[in-house]
Structures are given as C-alpha cells and as structure tokens.
C-alpha cells in the first residue's frame, strides 16, 4: 500500500516535469445562451477536471501541453467534446455550447438512487431536457413530457378544465385495479402523491425509467414505470458568496380549439317537425312549438313575421354563450446562493388561468426551498415544496351539458323588449329558457353554482449521507408528503340542480387529509479493481399512506353568501360521512452495477417487497432483475466502421410486482342500507364485497432489448428498444353474474401481455457551425400492443367483462361504475349497417323495426337481433404514438415545433351518440337525418311518391338517407344508439395535434446589459394550436362527455437573468 502511494507520487512528479498549460472558458446553453453552472469539464486521458461556476466559467490548470480532447457535460445536455491545442506558455480559451438533448449517448443521467454515466446504463431510460420542459406553458409537469418520450403516453385526464391532472402511462397498461400510473421520484425520494402540484419551473431534468432493470430498484411502486425528476440546485464549484437571480414571465390568451356544430334555430324547427311527423303527431306550429318558442320559429320561417320584426332572433347559440376568452399568466422568480459548503435555491412561482368556460379558473402558488450543506464526511440536504392550488370549477359539465342540450329556440333572458336578448340591462336571466322542465339556463347555473377545489400540499425530500470511507457510504432519505384537499360545492337558491330548481341554497364540503412518507436507508459501496468497477447498493425502505376523508352537507341554508362555511345554519343537515384508509409497503433491495473494461456492463437487482394490502401469507414476494450492456462501439473491431460513432447493445429481464389496490379489499365489506319499519329506523347492512384473502402480488415479467447508436459523428443518434411484458395474476375487478348477489369482485384473474417497440431518433440536420443555423429533429415512435393471454376463469373469452383472448384489456363497461377508463375500451357490439329504408319495411318489421330506424347486421341470419349478433368492433388502444420535434437556432433566434399523433385506434364517438338522439326535447348535432319524404326516391321531396320498383339500395344512396336515423318525438333513445349499444358510433380513430410552436429571440448581451440584465430572451408561443381529427366532439383526447372544450393558448413571455 505504502509502495503504491510512493509510485503514484513519483508518477505525478514525473508528469509535472512535462510542459503544462491552462484552459479557461465558459459553458453555456446553446438555446438560451445562459451560463450553465456546475457543468463538468474533463481533459480526456488525464485526471484534470473542473466544474463551472454560476457564470458558467471554468479554469483547468496543469494540463499537459499538446492537442487534447476536452469534454463538457451536464445533466440534461448532450456532452460535447472539442479538441484544443494546449500551449504551455499562454493559456488556452475553449468555450462550450451545450445542446439540451433527450437522447444522449454520453453524459450523466439520473437513475434510481443515484446517477450514472449514460454509457454505463443497461436499462431503458428516456429523458426530457430543461429546454423542453420550459417550452410548455403549464402548471403541470406531466404536460411538459407529453409527446417527448417514446413509450410514454400522456393524455388529458378526461376533461380540459383548467388544472386537471394528466393521465400518464408508460409502455401501455398492465393492470386495472392495481393502477397504471407511474411512480414519481423527486431528487431520489419517491413521492407519495401525484405530481400535479410540483412546479415545473424548478425542474432540471426528467428521466423516465421504462424496463425492469431500470425500475427494479423501486420495486412494486415502479412497476408501471418511474418518472425521475431532478430539481435545480445551486451547483458545485461556484465562488463563495454569490447570488444568481432569474425571472421568467409569460402571458397568454386562450380560445376554444373547436366548437361542435349543433343545430341552430331554423334547423331545430325542421327537426322538431320531422320528429312530430314520425311519431304521428300534428305538425302545425301551435302543436309542435310552445308560445315562447313561436317568435323564434316565425322569425326563422315566416317572411311576413321577419318583415314585421326586423332583427328578430331565431334562437340562441348556447355554446358561445358560456364561452369567453381565457387568459393565463405565469411568473417565476428563482434565487441561487452559495456560501461556503452550503448551497441554497429558492423558487417561487405563480400561475393563474382564467378558463375559456365561464366560472372556471385555476391558480397555483408554489414555493420551493432547496438547501444542501457538506460538513466533512456528512452531506445533508432538503428540498421542500409548498403548493396551494385553487381550482374554480363552477358548474363544469353541468354547464356544458345545458349549453349543448338546450333547445336553441329558447332565449336566455326575459326579453323585456330586447329582441335578441343577448345583452340585457333591465331584463333578468330566465330560470328555464325553454318549456322543457329538465333544461335550465346555463347562464343561471354559472351565476349561482360555485364549486371550488383547493389543494394544499407540503412535500419534499430530506437526506443525509455519510461517507464511511473505503468507498462505503450510508444514506437516509426521508420524503414526507402532507396534503389537504377541500372540495366545496355551493348551489345558490336560484340554481337548478339535477333539473330541479332547488329553491333553497345547499352546500357540501368534503375534506381529504393525506399524510404519506417514504423512508429509505441505503448502504452503498464503490470500488475499482483494475478493469473492474463495482457499484453496490443495499436498501431498506418503507412507505406509508394514511388518508382520512370527511364530508358534511346541509340543505336549506338561510342566506346565499355563505358558500360552505356556515353549514350549521342549514335547516336540513345531511348525514356526515367519513373514512380512513391506511396502507404500508416495506422493501429490501440489493443492486450490483458491475463494469468490466468500461465496455461490459452488468446490473443485478433483487428486491423483496411486502404489502399491507394483501392478506397474511401473501404479503411478501421477491422480484429479481438483470441487465446487460455491451459498448460494442468501443471494441477494436468496430474501428473499421468509421461512420459509427457510438454503439451499445442492451438487454434486460426482470420481474416487478404491483399491489396498488385499495386497502381492506381482502376482507370483504358490507354496504349500509337505509330502510324504515313504520316510524322506526331500520338501518342495516348487506353483503357488499366478497372477501378475497387469496389475493397475491400481480407480477410482470419484462424483457427488453435495446440499442443506442450514434452515426456520422452523432449527426444521427438514437435509441431503439423492443420489449415484451407478461403480467400474470392480474389484479382485476371482475364483474360477476348478478345471480351471485354481487356485481363484482377483485381477483387475480389472468395474464396479459404488452409487446412493443420504441424508437427515439435525433438528427442534427444543420450543425450550426460558425454561427450558421443549427437544426435538430427528434423523432419518437411508440408501438405497443396489449392483449390478454389467458384468464383465470379459463381459456374462454369473458364476454360480460369484454375480455377476449388476444384482444386488449377492457377497463369497465359502464362509465358510472368504477373502474372505468374511456381510453382502455374494447367494443363488442352490433355491426352498423345504416338505416332501414322504406323499400325494406317488411324486412324491418321482422326485426321489430321500421324505416328510419338503425339497422344492424344479423350475423347469424336468424331474423332476430340477439346477443349472438354482437362482434368485436375495435378498441381504443392506438397502434402508434408518434411525435416529431424540430428545433432550430440561428444566431439569436430559436424556433421549435412539436407535432404529436395518436394513430390507429377505434373510437366510440359517444359525444355524437348522445347528441343525435333526434327527439323533440334536446338539441342535436346538425346532422343529415332520415326522413320519409327525403328518402323515398320520388320527385317531390315533400310527399311519399317513390317510383315503383325503387330499391332500398337506391333509397340509401340518396344523400343523408343512410347516415342518421329518423327523428321521432317521444322516443328518447333510438334503438342501437341507446345505453346498451353504440353501434353507429364506432369509427376509425387517429389524430394529429400540433402541441407547441415557439419562436424566441435572445437579446444581445449589450442590449440586455443596458437593462442591467445578465441575459434576456423573449418568445412567443402557441400551445395546442391545432388538432386534426374526424371526431365530432370537442377533442378526441377529452373523453366523450359534455365537458369544457379544449383550448389553444397564445403566449408571449420573457426569461430574464440577473
């Protein structure tokens, strides 16, 4: 040992004798020109290295003279290697401009419980750069990774109201009951709750771990993929006592992306008449329309009336009546300070959005403190984020439901002499704009219906790390997460709720308090032995979650201004409700990363997990994984392929588990029943859930092979993965035959498989040399196929649950009964054949139908439509997710463009089903419907005069006669477009969406300096400006219900550095 030291000293002394030089320079972000602090600069082939300070400057001394390769690297950026001639006499200047890159073959990448050189990875990991995160103007970090990472599918959470969480899945879905959401890990500490409260502005980089080898360290929690978030912190190597301040601001305006074409007044008049005629009712104005509607009807149809009433109203466009121009602003101030060994970052942000729907908005206030200190061998750090978000929801879906269903012949205001009654000084809002007792005035709803959700959350990560010497280190991570959610709902006395003018104010307040924490203890060891490198981790971790809920409500509140803050004054208090839910996880984990000759890589992970949610005897399970990597590009024999600048092969296999079911499922539960026996209360219980103590861990065995490559000096680089995941003992809520007395049970019911490939390819189309334009393109493609391999109940299809062997998993068949997921559906229904024509009357009658009705295929030809005639009509799983991102910088300008596609799925256009009932009460989509006059094929469209011998096919060929059924009064649901069948609504799905277009300009330092700014960039942005789809509703990703439309946002903003 002592000898070795001597040798080393001698060696160093010998080196010293060589001529030595000095390299200085700066490292900046190529897009923003902002300095990058904490970047590492290494002189390759030597031990000379340095980190940049807050100004991005570095100094490396004692560099051996000669031509040297120097590499700069930083998390979230592609590393850059430049060659420079080092002269002993004079210093050398070498500046680096790093390009943020999701696909990088070199550089540091965050992995579970640590960082690794990307070249040493064996798992499949996708990255999002700070620049990409900054590009998306949102309060939700998951919107920032939308369409950025191959294999990750992010869609709106069923609605487009402001502040709604996103729905994230990694590599398709495995499970239903056990949840498909990924695990979020912030600075190495798993988050107990969701990510939506996290401030995107504090994020340095996001990594997505996809395969078993990468996620194994997180065990059961990571089985649906892991999203690692690294926050910005003060960087090492910064001169003492410096402070850096930056400020970002943006302002945007929002408008609806797409409104639907509902019938207007005149179209409704025609439809109502046709509906009355089809039902054999009188069709005169007085019979079909009410006195209140008649002026609008006459205005639409009667020339004499129009002449007498110039400017009269033919009706109301209810959609536009509840819309407004939305506005959004975001401000963010951050401060970084370094003093001695302590580093501090403070970030505060404010996000405010006034939605495009009346009464909707979202505000988020967020503050993050990040502090780190090193004292000798002990390093401690803490990051705490406090968030308060307030979502004003208002009547939301009810408002849109009214706006869509209200008959356009109704007017919103008591006219009081204002003919169009769109603006009104003296008149008042009508309670019911139409005579329909169930339809209410959406503007009135907006007036008195308050719903507000506030979320307060304090969460963070604290760690202490002690270097034990000899490569050993001990680390404790503690991640507490305290959240309070309040959901207050108030309906003023003037509000109509569920079709009933409630006549007295009522309110409800629901509180959820959740305390969760994770506590991990790690022992790590790093060791080198010649060509062998070891990195060993042992972990013991626990996670716990404790959630309580309370709901109180009262009716007949005495005054209208109290919202939900004085419920005790209500005459009619409602029974309070409360609940408690506790679960825990415990884990032992060991991992070995082994590298041989820097080329051969091995990762072994074993994990032993215990879950409180399973019954005794099934709580613990073991999950191993292995990952292999080969830097084949570094092998000598590869030198002959000069165009290959890097090539790595990866393979991994492993098993992960999942038990994310609700607690207490194994016990069975009882349902409270309410009854009275005469005057006495007879409150009872009946069996509610079947006890199932046999539930076991859901296990997913994964296989992943991947290749990382760089070609032509990394002008083309990328990563391609293929994978197969087999999930067994799928935890699933399964519907049971009702004769059991139960409707469903949670079970380990079968095996599913996900197969797919992902490709992320980055091309440098223009290199940006010598001030020329630099243009890069990121292409990401994801194909995933999910299918059921077998079911525990046998190899046969389970038709009732819509589970078919070889088809994807169907999650729920009824939106009203959870679990249900509109984006994970398999459709098993009748095949739509168009409309029964007049010439088919006799055949139609055999089927219990008549001309103008929906015709479906009689598959088995038994002259009856029965359950046996149902077929698989498709599924909602896209065959391909694609995104194309272009980034161009030229001089001080930067332009980027993100396009996303979801392709190759079947959609159930439930929006159009609901809006084409074509009866006399509610408004309809403006569709070409069947009428006997139009579709008889005769010369006069007003009477039935078809020529003899006209066939059904000829009738069907008449425009508008084979697409939508006949209107009919009194018939609420056309058969096969009803709650049991959506036969006409399935159609090929596939849409492209322009997610983001950004144009930025960085001011010259001289100009910025004039304003005393260190740097200044201004930009304009369009978020979600276009969607290309054949969908009839508002947005193909928004689900099918009458929810607020999606919107485009036009933004201007500035990034300021001080």
């Amino acid at each position, binding site marked *: 040992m002592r000898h070795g030291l001597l040798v080393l000293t001698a060696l160093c002394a010998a080196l010293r004798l060589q001529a030595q030089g000095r390299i200085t320079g700066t490292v900046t972000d190529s897009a923003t020109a902002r300095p990058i602090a904490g970047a590492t600069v290494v002189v390759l082939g030597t031990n000379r290295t340095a980190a940049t300070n807050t100004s991005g400057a570095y100094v490396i001394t004692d560099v051996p003279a000669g031509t040297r390769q120097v590499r700069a690297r930083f998390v979230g950026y592609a590393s850059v290697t430049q060659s420079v001639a080092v002269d002993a006499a004079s210093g050398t200047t070498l500046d680096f401009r790093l390009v943020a890159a999701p696909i990088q073959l070199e550089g540091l990448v965050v992995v579970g419980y640590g960082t690794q050189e990307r070249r040493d990875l064996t798992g499949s990991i996708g990255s999002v750069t700070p620049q990409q995160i900054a590009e998306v103007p949102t309060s939700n970090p998951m919107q920032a990774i939308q369409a950025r990472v191959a294999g990750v599918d992010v869609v709106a959470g069923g609605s487009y109201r402001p502040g709604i969480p996103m729905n994230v899945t990694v590599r398709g879905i495995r499970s239903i009951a056990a949840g498909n959401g990924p695990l979020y890990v912030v600075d190495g500490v798993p988050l107990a709750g969701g990510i939506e409260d996290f401030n995107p502005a504090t994020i340095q980089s996001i990594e997505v771990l996809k395969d078993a080898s990468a996620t194994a360290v997180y065990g059961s929690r990571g089985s649906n993929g892991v999203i690692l978030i690294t926050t910005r912190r003060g960087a090492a190597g910064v001169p003492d006592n410096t402070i850096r301040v930056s400020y970002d601001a943006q302002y945007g305006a929002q408008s609806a992306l797409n409104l639907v074409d509902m019938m207007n007044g005149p179209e409704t008049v025609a439809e109502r008449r046709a509906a009355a005629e089809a039902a054999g009712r009188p069709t005169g104005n007085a019979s079909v329309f009410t006195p209140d509607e008649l002026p609008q009807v006459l205005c639409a149809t009667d020339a004499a009336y129009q002449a007498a009433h110039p400017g009269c109203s033919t009706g109301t466009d209810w959609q536009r009546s509840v819309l407004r121009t939305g506005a959004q602003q975001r401000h963010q101030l951050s401060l970084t300070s370094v003093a001695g060994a302590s580093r501090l970052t403070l970030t505060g942000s404010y996000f405010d959005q006034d939605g495009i729907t009346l009464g909707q908005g979202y505000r988020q206030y967020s503050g993050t403190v990040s502090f780190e200190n090193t004292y000798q061998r002990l390093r401690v750090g803490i990051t705490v984020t406090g968030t308060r978000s307030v979502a004003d929801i208002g009547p939301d879906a009810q408002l849109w439901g009214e706006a869509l269903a209200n008959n356009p012949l109704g007017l919103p205001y008591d006219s009081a002499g204002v003919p169009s009654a769109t603006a009104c000084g003296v008149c008042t809002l009508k309670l019911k704009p139409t005579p329909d007792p169930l339809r209410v005035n959406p503007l009135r709803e907006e007036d008195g219906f308050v719903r507000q959700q506030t979320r307060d959350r304090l969460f963070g990560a604290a760690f202490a790390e002690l270097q034990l010497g000899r490569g050993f280190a001990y680390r404790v991570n503690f991640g507490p997460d305290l959240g309070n959610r309040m959901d207050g709902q108030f309906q003023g006395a003037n509000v109509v709720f569920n079709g009933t003018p409630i006549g007295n104010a009522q309110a409800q307040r629901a509180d959820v308090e959740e305390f969760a924490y994770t506590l991990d203890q790690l022992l790590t060891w790093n060791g080198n032995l010649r060509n062998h490198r070891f990195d060993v981790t042992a972990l013991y971790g626990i996670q716990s979650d404790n959630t309580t809920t309370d709901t109180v409500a009262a009716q007949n509140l005495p005054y209208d201004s109290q919202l939900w803050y004085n419920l005790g004054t209500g005459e009619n208090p409602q029974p309070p409700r409360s609940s408690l839910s506790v679960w825990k996880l415990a884990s032992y984990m060991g991992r070995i990363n082994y590298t041989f000759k820097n080329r051969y890589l091995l990762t072994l992970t074993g994990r032993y997990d215990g879950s409180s949610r399973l019954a005794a005897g099934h709580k613990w399970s073991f999950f191993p994984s292995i990952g292999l990597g080969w830097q084949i590009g570094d092998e000598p024999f590869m030198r002959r392929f000069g165009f290959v600048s890097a090539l790595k092969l990866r393979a991994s296999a492993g098993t992960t588990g999942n038990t994310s079911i609700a607690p207490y499922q194994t016990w069975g539960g009882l349902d409270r029943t309410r009854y009275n026996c005469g005057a006495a209360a007879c409150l009872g219980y*009946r069996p509610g859930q079947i006890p199932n103590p046999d539930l076991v861990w859901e296990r997913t065995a994964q296989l992943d092979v991947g290749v990382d490559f760089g070609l032509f000096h990394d002008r083309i680089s990328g990563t391609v993965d293929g994978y197969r995941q087999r999930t067994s003992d799928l935890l699933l809520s399964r519907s049971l035959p009702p004769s059991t007395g139960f409707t469903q049970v949670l079970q380990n019911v079968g095996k599913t498989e996900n197969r797919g490939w992902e490709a992320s390819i980055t091309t440098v189309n223009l290199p940006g040399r010598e001030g020329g334009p630099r243009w890069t393109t990121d292409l990401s493609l994801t194909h995933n196929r999910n299918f059921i391999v077998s079911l525990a109940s046998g190899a046969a299809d389970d038709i009732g649950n819509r589970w078919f062997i070889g088809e994807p998993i169907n999650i729920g068949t009824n939106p009203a009964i959870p679990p249900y997921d509109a984006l994970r559906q398999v459709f098993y229904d009748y095949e739509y054949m168009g409309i029964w024509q007049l010439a088919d009357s006799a055949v139609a009658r055999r089927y219990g139908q008549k001309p103008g009705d929906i015709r479906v295929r009689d598959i088995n030809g038994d002259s009856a439509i029965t359950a046996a005639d149902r077929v698989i009509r498709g599924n909602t799983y896209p065959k391909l997710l694609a995104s194309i991102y272009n980034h161009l910088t030229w001089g001080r300008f930067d332009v980027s463009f993100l396009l996303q596609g979801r392709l190759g799925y079947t959609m159930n256009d439930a929006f159009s089903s609901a809006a084409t009932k074509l009866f006399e009460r509610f408004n309809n989509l403006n569709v070409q419907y069947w009428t006997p006059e139009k579709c008889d094929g005769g010369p006069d469209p007003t009477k039935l005069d078809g020529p003899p011998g006209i066939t059904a096919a000829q009738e069907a060929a008449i425009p508008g006669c084979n697409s939508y059924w006949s209107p009919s009064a009194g018939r609420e649901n056309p058969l096969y477009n009803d709650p049991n069948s959506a036969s006409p609504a399935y159609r090929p799905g596939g849409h492209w969406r322009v997610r983001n277009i950004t144009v930025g300009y960085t001011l010259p330092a001289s100009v910025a300096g004039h304003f005393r700014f260190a740097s200044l960039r201004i930009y304009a942005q369009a978020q979600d400006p276009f969607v290309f789809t054949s969908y009839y509703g508002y947005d193909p990703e928004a689900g099918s219900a009458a929810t607020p439309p999606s919107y485009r946002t036009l933004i201007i903003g500035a990034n300021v550095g001080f």
Partner: protein
Amino acid sequence: MKNLRFLLWGLALATLTGCVDLDEQLVGTVTTTYFSTPAGLEAAVDGDYAQLRDFFGREESFAVTEFGTDLTSNGDQGAYQFENTYAAGLNASDGHYQFPWTSFYRGINTSNTVVARAPAVTGMDPAVKASRIAEAKFLRALSYFWLVQMYGPVPLPLTESQGASNQAHRSPVDSVYLQIVQDLRDAIPDLPATQSQFGRATKGAAHHLLAKVLLTRAYHPFAYEAANTGFYLSGPTFQREASATAATDFAAARAEADSVIAGPYALMPNYVDVYCAPMGARGPGSYCNVPSNESNSEIIFSVQFTTTAGQFNVGGGNSLFVQMLSFYDDRQGMTRDCNNGRAFRRARPTLFARNLWQRWTDSTYSTVLDTRYDGTFQSVWYANASNTGACFASQGAARMSGYRGGSCGSGGLPTFGVASSDTATVPNCTNGQPFVAGDTAIFQPGHLVGQAVRQAAKYAIYEPCVTEPCPNQTTVGQYDIFRFPTMKKWQDDARPDFNNLDGGRDIILMRLGETYLIAAEAALGAGDEPGALAYLVTLRQRAANCRGCPAEAANRALIVDATHMPATIDLEYIMDERGREMYGELTRWLDLARTSLWHRVVDDNWQASQLHGGFFNEAKHHLRPIPQNQIDLTAGGTQAFPQNPGY
C-alpha cells in the same frame, strides 16, 4: 475495530427501521363477521328489507307489471315505449329487466346470509331470532316468486355467496316453486301475527303470499320443463309436493286466503281511503293527498318509504308517482306543483281500461256507482298559477256558470248547467280574465260532452276517444298520448319539491282487497263458482260505498244486481274485477302471465297488437328476457345459461 463500526451501523439501521407492521387494522370498515353477532344479524335482516325499495320504488316495477298489458298503454314520453309495443328494444339488454334480476338476487344473498349464520349467533332471544330467520325466508320467497313469474327457470342459490364464482345454471320452475312454498311454510309458525315495527313480515303476509304462490302454481303446466329437459343441469321432476296437484293447489290457495280474511285485517269502508287521504271539498276526482295513516286496516304488507333524513338514500325514494300522469303543466292556469306531480307521461289507461268501471248509475252521469274509478284516476285540475295566462277566449261570459263543485254522491265532479247562484261552486275563470288559484283549469268528465260544451267551458276539457286507435288523434280536446286520466293512487304531494323523484309513500304489495280476489280465483279454480262470486260481491259492495251519501244503500244493492253483475262468473270476469280493484297496483302483467289470458293484450292494447303495428307475440313474450349480462358473465355463456326462447 472495523467490524465493531459496521456492527454499530448495522445496529443503527435495524433500530431506525424497526419492524413495519404490515397487518391491516380495520377501523372504519365493517366485514361480514359482523353478521355473526346479534346486532349484525338484526342489521342483515334490516338490510334484507332494503332490497324492496331498490325494485319496487322505481320505474322498473311499473315497467314490468303495468306496461304492455290490456289495461295500460304508452304515453308520449319515455325511452321505454317498446316495452308497451313489444318492439325490438324489449330485449335482453333492456335495463328494466336487468335491474329486478340484480336487485332480487342481491336480496336473496342477504336472506341466504341470515339463514346460514343465524343458528350460530348466540346471545339472542330465541323467539326474536326465529322471527328474524322467518322474515329472511319470507323475503327470499317473495324475491323468488317475482323472479320465477317473470323469467321462468332461474338460478336457485340457497347459500351465502362465498368467493368469486361465475357458475350459475337455471333451475326448473317446479323446484323454484317447491323452495318458495317450503320457505313460506317454514316461516309462518315463527312469524308474529302483528309486528311492533310496522312493515316487517307477519303471519298474514306469509299466508297471503303463499295463497298467491299456490294459485299461480296451480295454473302452471310445467310444460316448459317437459319440453326442454336438456336445459337444466339436473333434470326437472315436474313435481309439486308429494300428493299435491293443480286441484289441491287451488284448494290450498283458497284456504290460505281465507285464513288471512279471518285474520286481523278489515277492508277500508271506502275504497279511495286505501290510497288517499279524505279529499275534503275538492272531491275524489281531484289529486290524491298522502294519507296520514299508511298502515290502515286493509294493508297486509307494504314496502316502506319515508322522507325522514337518514332513513332513505337520495335516489332511493318511491318514484312511481311520475309514471302515469297526464300532461297538465302546459295548460293555462297550471304550473307544475307537488300535488299534481311531475308528469313523466310514460303510460296511460287503455280504452278498455277506461270503460271497465260502471262509474255512474245512469247515462246522465249524475250519480256515481263504482267509486273505484275516482279512487284510481284524477279528472280535474285546479289552477295553481294565478295570473299566468288568460282564460280561453272562446269561453262563456259569466264566471261561475257552468260548473259546480261536487258534493258527496256526485263523485265531486263538475257537472253542467248549474245556476251561478249555487253556493257550492268553486270559483271559475271569467272570460279573458286570468285564472285565479282554485279555478278549474282542466277537466276530464270521462264521457262525451261534445264540441259545443268543450268550447263553451272556460277551462280545458278533454273527452274520451271512443275507439282505439283514435281516428281523430290530432283533435284538440280528446284523450291522446299526452292527455288521459291520471293515475292518482301513487301521487305524492309531500315531496320537498315538485321535480323531486324521492317520494316517501309506501307501496302496498299485499292488501285484503287482493286477498278476496285471490280467494275468488282459487275458489273458481277449485270448481266453487258460487263461492268465488261471494268474494267479489263483498268487494263490489265496498266499491259502491260513497262515504254515507244518500245513494249508498241503494248503490250497494245496485252494483251486484243482475244488470251490473252476471249471475255466474268466469275467469275473465275475475280478471275484469281485478282490473277495477287493483288498477296500477303492480300486478297486471303477472296476472295475465298466471292465467295465460294473453289474448287480452292483443284485444285491448292496440299499440301492442300486431294488427296495429305492435309486436306482441305470446310465444316469446310470456316470459321476460334473461338479462344479457347474466348470460355473458356466466361461465359457458349461452350454452350453460340459455336465453328464454325468442330473445
């Protein structure tokens, strides 16, 4: 030294992590073990009763019993008109036939749980325990009786569902009946004659139900079992109890009914009082007030509803009141209110039904004979929205002329040609003046008055159309799918607001009036026609009671004389009498199914009849479709769990 340090760290590690307790503590959750305690057993029986609200208080109970019969046809509103016309929408996916299936089997599982767990429960008064078991068996029998009548062969689980199973098979109708009879015979000795908590099952209720079960089984040929032996997992036995036959079933049914008639029940003196509170000055043609006594002497068993907070679930109220209400709230002077109800206009009486009653003693419509028509239908609506809308322009000049508030004996209905000096008049609208609250706004006299009278009246008059389909369906002033006699037995004026669907009225499932009808039908089946007639005479004479009005004694004789009642009766006549007595009481479809008098649907419900575009087909529609989800979710699908023929 080094080792010691590692040991120390290891120790620290172990101390910090301690041992995490992964056992779940049940705090806010109650599990099935609770049912094995005395309090839990009581709760399970209470929970068993709650199933009754699930089905009977909802649209489904009306849809499966009234729609598509000889007495009830569809109105203009609602998604389920195909249930009346028997068109293609009446299929296995129809929610109205899924819901009772799911609901009854949930109740059956609760009953099975009680029956299985009760013997092991300790610390309970044995008599109370025996009664609770008997109540559970009574409810199980009730559920199976409904199921077997609607669906034919059905699964017959008798044990608590344990573990997840997708196994099910249809049991032959005879074995279902055997079980029902067995359960009721087991229950009768343990049930008390009266319960301190009204609404719980009693001996009388079990006897009444058993009478109806035996009567129903007596008609049953078990032909379906004989023709479809491959249908069942275990072969049908085509059996009743040992030595039982159709004839003994009829006789036993009569005996059971007689025991109820001899029991602690009594017919209400006036028919209308069974369902409605006394009307006061408004007269019986008006709406029906919620009676203050929903446990009157005639009621044997009723489904309990309440509006007391905490005892009903929102959405779990009795919403029957909306089903058969005529369109009234669009008429001048009228707005929707609680008294007149929220008119869903789902269904309306057929022409046959409207002509069923001998409503008046003579053709001048001056003296009411059978009070049951006015006890069943609302005929007059009083203005409730003053200053909304002027009177009809074509109306006569003088206020108060042409209308007289009814007095006892006239049925309280408006009559014509009465002097304006009559002090009994209810205020009426002056031509061109706004309606004043209390003015007559709508009147359905129930007989033809002619266009002249209609146009002279200062309120809306709707007169019957005397043929079906009505040739002048479009003529304003005739009954049509919008306007028709309004079902008043279900009306509920005590709801919190007029759109509220959570009514609090009880649903009478068994009453003494029906016991007489069961007894009559059983007597006829057993060959005792005079005995059968005697039961009907009792009911008809009660129907002639008009609260002690002068004509009462005469009417009681008149209603059973040779011109008003045949000397010998047959099954058709009993069915007519059932219609008169039991209209709208959730039995009619089952009555037709029991007696197989399906020709009545064809003859009397033109919307269902194939002659007029309906789709009724006895071979198919004598049973309801097995819910498709039951078949789809059962292992083996259609092979293991066949659908009823034709669906």
